[in-house]
């Protein structure tokens, strides 16, 4: 397999070489990166805020490709599932899009009465010189709601910069609401996007422990909750790649401490609840006992069935390629719980310390890769003879074409994989793909049947 010269240091094989992985840089030209762009990073983070208007300022593509594709659920308004776009045309590009933006925003706000509006700048907005900030200020004054520019021009960095632009927009909301009445035993849930209702599960765990949830940012998010999020006593940050900036600024600005958590897999899920309980031990009487009880009850319910899958999955090999590295940690552990080894793991946006941790977690020989592409990924899958690939829609056909099982762990999925119940779903999903009889009929499957000792 030919790995591009400028990418050679973005691939590491544990055990064979000293660890010096290169990452967090612009994708190599022509590499067919699996990454998207700054806009994508912002859009994915803010998308679930259900009572806000999300307007994409630019030509149609970016809005078309992000219309109702996420599994992020709302318990109330569904406004976020629409795609609104200024759909700039040639004349707008020449004359500027400010007037069109002003009119588009005014009409949509009058029609839908949102609690706030986010205006996403796409590539060309940065080039044609529209003063989006000024238009947003003006509309905000006219319509009496926050109108927040999101500086998400696609070329201005990587997806990670898009996360930051989203956090900056959120930071303009946080602190603008009245936090009185927010309990001392309250938390914000950061970095869960309520895919398939996951934030509802997580929220219930915390409430059963005796905590109050002030804001979920952004899964099933509401503008008014975010505005008073600064009243909470603790920020729990999942998907730290996207939400760390928000948590850090909230700590500096409002003195709210944060903890990194993950809700994927039994160990990480339990640890998140135990850590949170420990944090509130002096504030909420009996919280630690209640948490132990909660975890025990949930495990009693899911473990017997998981044990069955484990028996059948033990020794199988898995590969992971996801957006954020933090999710990969949990996945390696969750797979281990199912008796499976992770022989390849990579991410689009991981940082050096993330990859170091992944290296620690994985066994000798594991391939660690940053910002990979289809040719590399397909060669790793074949080389390591994996039984399961975990990724998103763009990774799926790579696995399927080669006759390899696949589990979708991206924002498009419609299956809850977080929480204890999510671990059970994950086990069923993994089992359902790895154990499917269809592989026997594929060229790769028949070759493996003919030579079972691989």
């Amino acid at each position, binding site marked *: 397999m030919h790995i591009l010269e400028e990418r050679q240091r973005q691939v590491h094989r544990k055990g064979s070489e000293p660890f010096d992985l290169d990452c967090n840089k612009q994708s190599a030209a022509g590499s067919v990166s699996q990454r998207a762009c700054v806009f994508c990073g912002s859009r994915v983070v803010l998308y679930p805020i259900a009572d806000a208007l999300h307007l994409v300022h630019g*030509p149609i593509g970016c809005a078309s490709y*992000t219309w109702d594709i996420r599994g992020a659920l709302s318990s109330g308004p569904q406004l976020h599932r*629409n795609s609104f776009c200024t*759909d700039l045309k*040639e004349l707008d590009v020449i004359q500027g899009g400010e007037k069109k933006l002003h009119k588009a925003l005014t009409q*949509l706000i009058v029609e839908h009465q949102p609690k706030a509006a986010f205006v996403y700048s796409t*590539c060309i907005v940065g*080039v044609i010189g529209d003063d989006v900030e000024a238009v947003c200020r003006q509309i905000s004054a006219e319509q009496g709601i926050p109108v927040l520019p999101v500086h998400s021009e696609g070329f201005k960095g990587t997806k990670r910069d898009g996360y930051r632009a989203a956090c900056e927009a959120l930071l303009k909301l946080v602190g603008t609401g009245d936090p009185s009445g927010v309990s001392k035993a309250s938390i914000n849930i950061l970095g869960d996007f309520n895919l398939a209702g996951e934030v509802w599960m997580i929220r219930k765990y915390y409430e059963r422990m005796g905590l109050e949830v002030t804001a979920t940012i952004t899964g099933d998010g509401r503008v008014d909750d975010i505005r008073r999020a600064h009243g909470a006593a603790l920020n729990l940050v999942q998907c730290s790649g996207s939400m760390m900036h928000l948590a850090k600024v909230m700590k500096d600005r409002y003195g709210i401490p944060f903890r990194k958590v993950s809700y994927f897999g039994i160990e990480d899920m339990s640890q998140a609840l135990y850590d949170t309980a420990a944090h509130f031990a002096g504030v909420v009487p009996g919280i630690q006992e209640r948490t132990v009880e909660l975890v025990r009850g949930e495990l009693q319910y899911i473990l017997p069935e998981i044990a069955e899958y484990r028996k059948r999955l033990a020794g199988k090999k898995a590969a992971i390629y996801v957006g954020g590295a933090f999710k990969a940690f949990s996945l390696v552990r969750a797979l281990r719980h199912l008796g499976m080894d992770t022989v390849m793991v990579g991410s689009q946006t991981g940082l050096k310390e993330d990859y170091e941790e992944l290296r620690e977690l994985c066994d000798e020989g594991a391939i660690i890769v940053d910002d990979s592409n289809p040719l590399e990924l397909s060669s790793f899958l074949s080389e390591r003879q994996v039984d399961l690939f975990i990724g998103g*829609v*763009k990774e799926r056909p790579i696995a399927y074409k080669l006759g390899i099982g696949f589990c979708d762990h991206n924002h498009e999925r419609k299956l809850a994989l977080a929480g204890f119940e999510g671990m059970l779903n994950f086990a069923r999903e993994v089992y359902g793909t790895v154990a499917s009889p269809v592989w026997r009929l594929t060229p790769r499957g028949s070759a493996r049947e003919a030579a079972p000792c691989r």
Partner: protein
Amino acid sequence: MPVAEPFVSTRNPCKACSPLGACLAFRGIEGAVPFLHGSQGCATYIRRYLISHFREPMDVAASSFSESSTVFGGGDKLRRGLDNVSRQYQPRMIGIATTCLVETIGEDVKMLLNDYHPAAEPAPDLVHVSTPSYRGTHVDGFHAAVRAVVGQLAEAGEPTSSVNLFPGAVSPADLRHLKEIASAFSLDVAILPDYSDTLDGAQLEEYRKIPEGGTPLASIRAMGRAAVSIEFGRTLEGSATGAAELERKFGIARKTLGWPVGVVESDRFFSELSAISGRPVPQIFVRERGRLVDSYVDAHKYVFGKRAIVYGEEDLVVGLAAFLSEIGIQPVLCASGGQSGRLEAAVAAVTASSVGPVLARGNLDFAAVRELALEMKPDFMIGGSKGYSIARELDIPLIRVGFPIHDRIGGQRILHLGYRGAQQLFDAVTNTLLARAQDRSPVGYSYL
């Protein structure tokens, strides 16, 4: 009620951007890799959109613009990108489409490519198409790419008896059927593009960098020597198609037909092939047509007078409108996000036999379709998956055809064209209506 001012924004688009269409067209050329000069995200979004429909690998390279490329120009990124694609994929052709960013900064891609000296041996053909997404839709990008390919690759020479066929953005199943039809007429037909294998391929033991199949480059070069070109699409811009390019450059006669959807539009296609080949329509298709019309008769009462909303790309909408009209279903609304300005006339031309008035509107979004649908009370909708929320709200069936189909499997296997395609559409429409009536019946007859 006062007439509200139209929305200036697009609300739930019935279109995608032009680079997507170019990538799709390039995927139908043997040994080709689509390449976007612009931001990384464009390539990734387009890949996801196409993968979700075709469920096949769909690699699109990008030059991955940065801030400095935007300020100082992306020539370096373009050259390095092309070198890297050549190294990784060993392509025979790289199809380079531009994004809105590159078009807006006014990059002279043609000049950059003229000055580019490929490191790879043998050097791939480089075909460049300008696809700013602030102009037109994905369908315009598709046709622009096809035109660029023949404009830049087709060559003059000794005339042949072969036929160029430009089918438009039809399904892989349609492309396979067209090849079968051509071969039954013993015609040597070059279809451009042909992604019937590249986007609907078999399982592999070894991953292929570029999927097998596609129109061979040699066939594309020979298109400049063909006897005649056939292109599908009643809304095509006459002067801006691949066939028009060949007519202008090489004097090759051009026949423009509607998408052969339904009996009447298919008849035109078959008789054209008959005229070109000097052969009668092969018996296999005569019999297919016979069975199709027989089924129309068997089921005409189940479908008569039903009201349908048709949407999608303009030429598919025209074809479906023709088909629905000829079976007695009224296409009350024929909607498209396309902006050719020719949809209304094209629909009118094929719906003369309609049992009731037909409204055709281009440049619509799904919010507008919904508003019209609420008034029109249709019995069903027919189009891609993006109309689902409206069908759900109206509690009417949605029959999935065309592109994109993101909520079912098998979009690539839907056959729309020819008598056989019409048969499948007819059975799907009729059985959907029967099932609906059956499910709604308080009795629940199992014998209809």
